[in-house]
């Protein structure tokens, strides 16, 4: 996907005549110089969101709270996915998902929606999607703080001991989300219906990610449908990011070996306490985040050449 049909223009901008490394350094320096602007944009996002409602922060907690109640009732009592502490289990995945989804869906129209600004002032354009991601990060951290007493109560004090792993998880997920948002926000300028398409994609993606069910549920079932499902989950990067976060804040869910397959069982799943992420998990998520960010950043700048003409 490119913004330009190849060969119609021969861009000979200053940045392209220099070696790529120096061009990249220039771009990053420029981003560093614009950090105050990024801070202001994040502040604006947060202020505008909280200014017009006395309940402010409460509203941003309402969605995860309601979703937790709904999914706990449905899955813990009606469909009975008996995962220990289902609400804690759900929250440990859903908060990450919500951060990811809100960032992408908010940032995808950040370029198109700021047309007047882009046509009138120069600043590093990646600030627009990044400011959405960072303001969502603030919501994410506040929501995490708000539910932490509940998590500690259900999963024990060892969560605090694993705090460094939680922070690493937050950083890695933020980098990954930034890469995706830059890519999509840039592409959305050329393909304006991307933002509608992404809503549908996220609906499917949500269920294709182990958020409301444990990974162990598909991993240990021996039939062909479950095999396909397992491989889909393995290739879904969000599976890994959810795991990275959930394992250090909730624990690892495993199938109960005492339960025979296919029979009713009071406790089909067992959960460990919070654990350190495995090296494999770290390598996969860090690599995925770095590659996504690199590709997203590179393509965003390819798209950005035409922003002022196309928005």
């Amino acid at each position, binding site marked *: 996907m490119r913004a330009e049909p190849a060969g119609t223009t021969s*861009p000979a901008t*200053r940045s392209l005549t220099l070696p790529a490394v120096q061009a990249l350094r220039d771009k990053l320096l420029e981003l560093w110089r614009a950090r105050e602007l990024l801070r202001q944009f994040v502040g604006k996002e947060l202020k505008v969101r909280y200014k017009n409602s006395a309940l402010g922060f409460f509203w941003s907690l309402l969605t995860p709270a309601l979703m937790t109640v709904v999914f706990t009732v449905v899955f813990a009592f009606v469909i009975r996915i008996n995962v220990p502490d289902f609400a804690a289990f759900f929250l440990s995945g859903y908060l990450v998902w919500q951060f990811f989804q809100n960032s992408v869906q908010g940032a995808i129209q950040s370029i198109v929606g700021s047309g007047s600004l882009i046509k009138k002032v120069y600043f590093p354009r990646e600030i627009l999607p990044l400011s959405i991601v960072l303001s969502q990060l603030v919501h994410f951290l506040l929501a995490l703080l708000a539910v932490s007493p509940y998590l500690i109560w259900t999963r024990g004090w060892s969560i605090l001991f694993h705090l460094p792993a939680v922070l690493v998880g937050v950083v890695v997920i933020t980098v990954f989300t930034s890469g995706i948002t830059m890519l999509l926000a840039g592409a959305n300028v050329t393909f304006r219906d991307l933002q509608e398409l992404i809503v549908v994609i996220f609906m499917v993606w949500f269920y294709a990610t182990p958020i409301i069910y444990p990974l162990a549920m598909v991993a240990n079932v021996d039939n062909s449908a479950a095999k396909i499902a397992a491989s889909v989950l393995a290739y879904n990067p969000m599976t890994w990011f959810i795991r990275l976060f959930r394992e250090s804040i909730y624990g690892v869910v495993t199938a109960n070996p005492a339960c025979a397959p296919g029979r009713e069982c009071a406790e089909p799943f067992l959960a460990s306490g919070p654990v350190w992420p495995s090296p494999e998990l770290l390598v996969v998520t860090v690599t995925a985040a770095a590659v996504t960010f690199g590709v997203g950043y590179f393509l965003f700048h390819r798209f950005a050449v035409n922003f002022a003409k196309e928005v």
Partner: protein
Amino acid sequence: MVLDSLRDFIRGDTDGPAIQVEGLTERFRLYKERPGGIKERLTRFRRPEYEDFEALSDVTFVIEQGESVGIIGHNGSGKSTLLKVLARILPPDEGRVEINGRVASLLELGAGMHGDLSGRENVYLNGAILGLTRSEIDERFDDIVDFAGVRPFLDTAVRNYSSGMYVRLGFAIAINVDPDILLVDEVLSVGDAQFQERSLQRMADFKERGKTIVVVSHDLNAIEDLCDRTIVLHRGKLVFDGPAGEGATQYAQLMGTGGTEGVRHDDGSYGSGHVRIDDVILVDTHGTRVTSVMPSTQMRLRVRLTARQDIDACSVGAIVRGTSGDLYEVHTTWQGLGVGPLPAGATAVVDISFTAHVLAGRFWITPVVTDPGVREQHAVVPDAIEFEVRPAPGGVGIVDMVAATSVFEGPALRLGGIETTGPLPIVRADTDDDSETRAG
């Protein structure tokens, strides 16, 4: 130490010319239809058709530090595009642009102000957009607020500001950025007279301190006052670069003088060239050519055009502007009327009748021939017609609202004819033939 050298590196070195432009070409893509999204791309198996339009072609010049340069040209000559390239908003398609020093651009005052945020918050947001750090804004905060005169309203959301306050705040922030190079696009024509004077004073101070200014304006007087040098652009090409006075003369020549004399084709028109505008005249209801009329006179713009290749349908329109900007725009297709089909070489004459409900001033009409969607411009003759509306009694302002007065209740008093009591009684004395025009 390291931080200092890093800062120097970031700021860029300030030796050498302020602006160097070499072989700059900027293209715009004029789509024949609105470019669609993924769905259109997948279902139609082709890219949307478009034509390239060169807004700037092969422009080269150097601006030394401390120079103040005015860029002038017709609407569509590429001057605003050039400013946007200098402001780094548009990357060059071809050629090289090198800028030394910190640039602030005033392309639109208050671009990026957010209505829900307070004046104070907007100062910080807008300052950051213009490239200031937090401490730099802190330093300038009082100057900005005092210059704009909005101190009592600092904690009010700017949504509730009057348009004057909004504009003043925007200018105050921009001028206090204190850049090395200031790029200005027509924005000086805002605010009340007193504020304008203060703004011009600020620009002059700025120039005194040896900073570089690049201004784009229609206002030749302002350019001559402020600038040492002008660059005249014509259809994307640099046609003159030299002293301000000479530049203004060049520009006036390019604009042509007698708009009502018709169109000289090599003079200012542009467009795809599929259609040529041969002649444009402005007549009154009797069919007599007019250049000076009374308020609310009915007139007819007659555009004669020739198709230079087969055209299915096109639209003829007119844009009327006054000294402060565009006032009115109309196209035949907006009224459900298309012109065509026209085989190559065929001519057509289109009449646009209108009533100029404006009061005293000078006005310009730009005829345009476009595709039926008014997207692709076949032919545009900027400011082909110039006419004047003479002062008349009965009301003052911008729009002629054709007011009538009466005393509904209570005693009325006849003070005499409007010749003696109107706001502009002197002009009425020699207007015997005008009443004819007006009645006509």
